[in-house]
């Protein structure tokens, strides 16, 4: 606050076009690669969880098949969370992700769609996700609606439409090539294809966030939308793209869910919005926007999925599991506040 300018700051002649000393530049690590307190503490939590699993259920927890299961379970919500991270960083919120996953998964598994086989299912899931994201984005960016309200409306409508399409029935997938992706034979070096997709989305998301103008503008809009607008950036178009991106992630997640469950259901993606927001927040993304981390979000997802797995392996009730999740959210945010103040 009480920043006093040093005398050296005044009157020193300008040094036009001074060369940048190479040493200082080389020492600089681009942001995004610097591990920060939040990421490290989350890694610590994950390590503790793994240790707990290794101690309480040594044979089951660390088995290859269990790790494959945990990562597979993390994949669907993980892809959604990557999209959510961008939206929250821009100062927005997307409450409709779970509903979009549900709608995309049932639309892509109708009898009519399944006639077009693998491509038809994949295309439909992605197209429905993008379509919903487009509506969200247009309402928010150009209709001037508050993200909370616009996506709440989408949440209600998409769930309703999903129910109408299925009439509450489970739609079994009969396309073999889709189901084959979920079986052991399709694993690449022991890694399930779903996990590979999750990894790819994470990598692309990280690059987009940290290495492109798109990511930079996302952070700028979240940090100060008015200043960004006055800097000559098209804030509205950026917002539209962000909800499209979230919709796209939902479409991909819906496809993964179809592979995983072998069916489409209107109850799919229940509470995904809350899980994705929680994972992003404990990962270190600010709910008020202006700061976000894809790596943190993915770690957040892994923490939650590992907890679920641990509780299941130890035959604990899901009620206790919910309480533990709540406690972790509180603890993570408190730690972050400390870290932020120390900045």
């Amino acid at each position, binding site marked *: 606050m*009480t*920043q006093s300018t040093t005398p050296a*700051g005044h009157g020193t002649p300008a040094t*036009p076009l001074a060369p940048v000393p190479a040493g200082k530049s080389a020492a600089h690590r681009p942001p995004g690669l610097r591990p920060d307190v939040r990421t490290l503490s989350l890694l610590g939590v994950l390590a503790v969880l793994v240790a707990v699993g290794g101690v309480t259920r040594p044979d089951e927890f660390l088995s290859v098949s269990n790790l494959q299961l945990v990562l597979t379970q993390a994949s669907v919500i993980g892809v959604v969370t990557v999209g959510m991270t961008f939206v929250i960083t821009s100062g927005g919120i997307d409450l409709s992700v779970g509903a979009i996953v549900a709608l995309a998964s049932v639309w892509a598994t109708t009898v009519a769609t399944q006639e077009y086989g693998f491509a038809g299912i994949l295309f439909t899931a992605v197209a429905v996700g993008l379509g919903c994201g487009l509506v969200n984005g247009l309402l928010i960016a150009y209709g001037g609606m508050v993200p909370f309200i616009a996506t709440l409306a989408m949440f209600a409508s998409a769930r309703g439409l999903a129910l109408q399409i299925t009439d509450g029935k489970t739609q079994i997938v009969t396309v073999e090539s889709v189901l084959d992706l979920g079986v052991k034979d399709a694993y690449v070096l022991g890694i399930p294809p779903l996990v590979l997709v999750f990894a790819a989305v994470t990598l692309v998301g990280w690059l987009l966030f940290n*290495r492109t103008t798109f990511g930079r503008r996302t952070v700028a809009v979240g940090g100060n939308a008015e200043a960004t*607008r*006055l800097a*000559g950036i098209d804030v509205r178009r950026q917002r539209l793209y962000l909800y499209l991106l979230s919709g796209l992630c939902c479409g991909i997640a819906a496809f993964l869910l179809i592979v995983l469950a072998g069916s489409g259901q209107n109850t799919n993606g229940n509470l995904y919005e809350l899980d994705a927001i929680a994972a992003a927040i404990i990962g270190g993304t600010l709910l008020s926007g*202006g700061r976000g981390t894809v790596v943190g979000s993915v770690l957040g997802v892994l923490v939650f999925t590992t907890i679920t797995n641990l509780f299941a392996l130890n035959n604990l009730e899901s009620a206790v599991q919910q309480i533990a999740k709540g406690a972790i959210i509180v603890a993570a945010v408190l730690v972050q506040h400390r870290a932020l103040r120390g*900045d």
Partner: protein
Amino acid sequence: MAPEPPLLTMSGITKSFPGVRALDGVDLEVRAGEVHCVLGQNGAGKSTLIKVLAGAHQPDGGRITWCGQEVTPGSPIAAMRLGIATIYQELDLVEGLSVAENVFLGHEPTTAGFVVRTRTARTAAARLLERLGHGEIDPARRAGELSAAQRQIVSMARALSHDVRLIVMDEPSAALDPDEVDNLFRTVGDLTAEGVAVVYISHRLEEIRRIGDRVTVLKDGRTVAGGLPAKSTSTDEVVTLMTGRSVEYVFPERSPQDAPATAEPVLRIEGLTRKGEFAPLDLELRPGEIVGLAGLVGSGRSEILETVYGARRPTGGRVLVDGVPLRPGSVRAAVRAGVGLAPEERKAQALLPMESVTRNVTVSTLSRFSRGGWLDQQRERDAARRTTRELSLRPDDPDARIRTLSGGNQQKAVLARWLLRGCKVLLLDEPTRGVDVGARAELYGVVRRLADEGLAVLLVSSEVPEVLGLADRVLVLREGNVVHTADARELDEHRVLDLVMEGSPTA
């Protein structure tokens, strides 16, 4: 005046924050019924001193004596109970509540302890407002609908709703027009006549001369002079105490040749107008020229800049850059044509507060450092650093967080943003707001140098000396109309103020 024991004595107050010693031995003595002015540059410790008085900060050392007893106001409520009220610069009214609810916030008159007696509160609020000479403010109105001046009165009414003996006012006139300032001073006079003491923080020396009794000067967290007579201490002496220098503003030399009248204008404004804000305006700006707009708050100055920039849509007229008309109401069109704006509210309108200097500088030029959306961060950082070095931005660290910089250096980062973009027309709205007196001269030098290098600058400032000292040509605005245009060297401060005030409604 008989020597009475002082109402408040602070001696040897110290307060440190991580890395900063904000207060390093402050002494302050305030008598009942006086207006005691506290002067100092930004960073001298005024804000911290106020917060210690208000109970918001606890001092690390020193003594506070109140009515002869040693006290430590441990919280804002404790300070309030002692009878110390603080009116902050950012007024702290709840906009959604009514005037009366704001006045009695936290100590509402109630029945049975929790049912608010609205009518009693309104009557009492009306009485307090009447006492302040502002009976025209309706206690039932929402605070959000009031003008800045009216809000200030409501804050004062809130202070008086407690049994207050000392009111601390932090730059109360900053958001006010001259006639409103007159009202404020009348109110302050009434309060002191009742024996209430006022600690008055301000930058404006002429105000202090008008209402102050005594002056305490702070520099670098220390009291350098206490209890000077406000009326008779010379400006020169006060400025010397504040800065260690003997002049307040140093303006750079104008370029020897007059603005080249032969050059083609880079910016042409033709009949630009916004209904209810400013009348049709014609203006030509040549490369190398600085044109100033002088006028009161509300005379349409900022609105003109923002309309030229496309942030507001004009209701008539057009703006041409290099002879090509800009799409009206489009910031992006203006930026692409080479127009840049350093807005009035730097924090809210220009800075990305959580970001580094580099990212603040390059936000308008991102596509230049990218191929297909892919950023070359090394090139981006080097370019930002080159530009900030040209402006001698301190610290010379492209990764420093922008919010840790002083106001003057933040402003340089904003200028660097537009320089990097290679803009031809720079719109400056209150460029030295929140900038230290000492750093101002440097900023003026930067602006003049940029103009000499061929930039056209359109400057708005509420500080008349700044407009006269920096601009080549001055347009005087009154209520949205240009009332006078002249060479800056042919005008003086009094003439401009006459033009600005002439015929304007007085209270």
